[in-house]
């Protein structure tokens, strides 16, 4: 393994395209995001401390709840999605496919689950690399008739597991959850005039408002940061998938199929739409940027474009 990595490292210095190299951006962004979150948290704490708020209990409870949520994440997810762990006998081809990818990339084999629904989708969950589950829907297997496309999607999910994305996002959401609890708590505290014994007796209403405002701000900002992290990790998982399979274009195609964006590439003849001159005035940028801020997944067009860049740098 060490030698293999050494070779890869060496070749990356000379001519390997950037996306094939180690994803330093991910690490840097993660550290940065956590630093910002920690800073937010610190500011939040000091404001609370300043106004004499007894927050520790709630913080601990909220964190414990989030951790419990993480600990049981696989079970919760499997239960709520209706995914069933399947054996090799039930889905031999799926097992073969996953085994091929993990053995090629030196990863432990995850459990494989299937969800019986027409909706094409896939997800990964689990606390760590060893207890991970990759789930695919029957709709996905039907839609992606080309096995290499399915392989791209599974490799994408395997990258989520390899990058420990469940843990990362859980940790990141602790702050948001704590802020959320405090927000509600502060709200109730404010309603009852701090009668529950928290805060100082003098100017209680004022401090409560501050708590609420700060909590709301913390919650909004951490909410946005979590989404930014999630989006970036989607790009990373796409890149990881491209590395594992060596076929970015297959994943790009799969993504377009899944999102129903196949209709994006039109089938209507150019001569039929030519008269609609106005159509050509519409700028290439579609969709709203504000919507992008809130979504956990980057728009498919962006992901496809990045995958195409990888494809281009490969051939």
């Amino acid at each position, binding site marked *: 393994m060490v030698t293999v990595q050494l070779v890869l490292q060496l070749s990356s210095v000379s001519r390997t395209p950037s996306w094939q190299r180690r994803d330093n951006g991910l690490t840097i962004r993660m550290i940065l995001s956590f630093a910002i979150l920690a800073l937010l948290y610190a500011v939040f704490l000091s404001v609370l401390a300043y106004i004499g708020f007894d927050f520790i209990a709630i913080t601990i409870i909220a964190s414990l709840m989030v951790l419990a949520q993480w600990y049981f994440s696989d079970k919760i997810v499997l239960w709520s999605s209706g995914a069933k762990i399947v054996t090799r006998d039930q889905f031999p081809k799926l097992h073969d496919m996953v085994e091929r990818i993990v053995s090629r990339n030196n990863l432990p084999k995850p459990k494989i689950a299937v969800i019986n629904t027409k909706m094409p989708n896939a997800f990964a969950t689990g606390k760590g690399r060893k207890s991970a589950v990759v789930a695919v829907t029957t709709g996905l297997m039907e839609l992606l008739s080309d096995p290499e496309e399915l392989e791209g999607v599974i490799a994408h999910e395997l990258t989520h597991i390899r990058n420990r994305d469940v843990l990362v996002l859980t940790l990141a959401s602790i702050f948001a959850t704590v802020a959320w609890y405090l927000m509600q708590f502060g709200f109730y505290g404010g309603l009852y005039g701090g009668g529950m014994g928290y805060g100082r007796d003098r100017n209680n209403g004022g401090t409560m408002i501050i708590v609420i405002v700060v909590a709301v701000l913390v919650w909004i900002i951490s909410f946005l940061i979590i989404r930014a992290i999630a989006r970036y990790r989607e790009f990373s998982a796409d890149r990881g998938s491209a590395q594992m399979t060596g076929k970015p274009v297959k994943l790009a195609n799969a993504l377009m199929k899944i999102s129903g964006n196949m209709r994006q*590439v039109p089938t209507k003849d*150019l001569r039929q739409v030519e008269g609609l001159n106005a159509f050509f005035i519409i700028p290439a940028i579609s969709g709203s940027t504000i919507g992008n801020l809130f979504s956990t997944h980057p728009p498919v067009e962006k992901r496809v474009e990045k995958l195409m860049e990888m494809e281009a740098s490969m051939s």
Partner: protein
Amino acid sequence: MRFFGKFIKKDYNAKTDSDALFSLSSAYLTIESKIGLKNSGRCALSMKNISGMYFNEMKEDIKRFLDISKTDFELSYRTHTDLYGYLWIILEGKRMEDLLAGISAVGDTVDEKGFSNQLLAAIFEFTNDKNKKQYLIYNYKRNTFYPFVPLESGQKSRNTEEEMKMMATIVDEVPLERDMTLWYPLWDLPL
């Protein structure tokens, strides 16, 4: 109002951008070496046919020019009017450079006569190792190229994967249409 109209009604029908077209003169080599698609030696230009003396005159000019250039460029040509009423000028030649020069000269003539609005697209044909046809379409209104790979089933469906591969190969070399919703196909090409 006329004052504003002058600014608002911008002419989006840009002129034949020969720079954009000629970027294909090296890009076709990249296509061949990277994904093994060969230039089939055929390309075409299509424009909206209109009636009128000037347009007919222009058509005669183009034909005259192409007759002369048969020897210079080693190009042969034929014309075709399709079901949509579009006029096609189909060129055949051995070298991509000649094809590009021919297409570009025809486009220039159309432009000079003031009919650049009628220009629709230039189409370049490639064949893969199984002799299946794949195309690059140059849209005169957008001044961009985009790929078009029809599936042979006759069901008007396209091989998006091959199209994306083509796009990925030449993304750095030619102005490509980034908005895939504008990758309008041209079915039943008369090439």
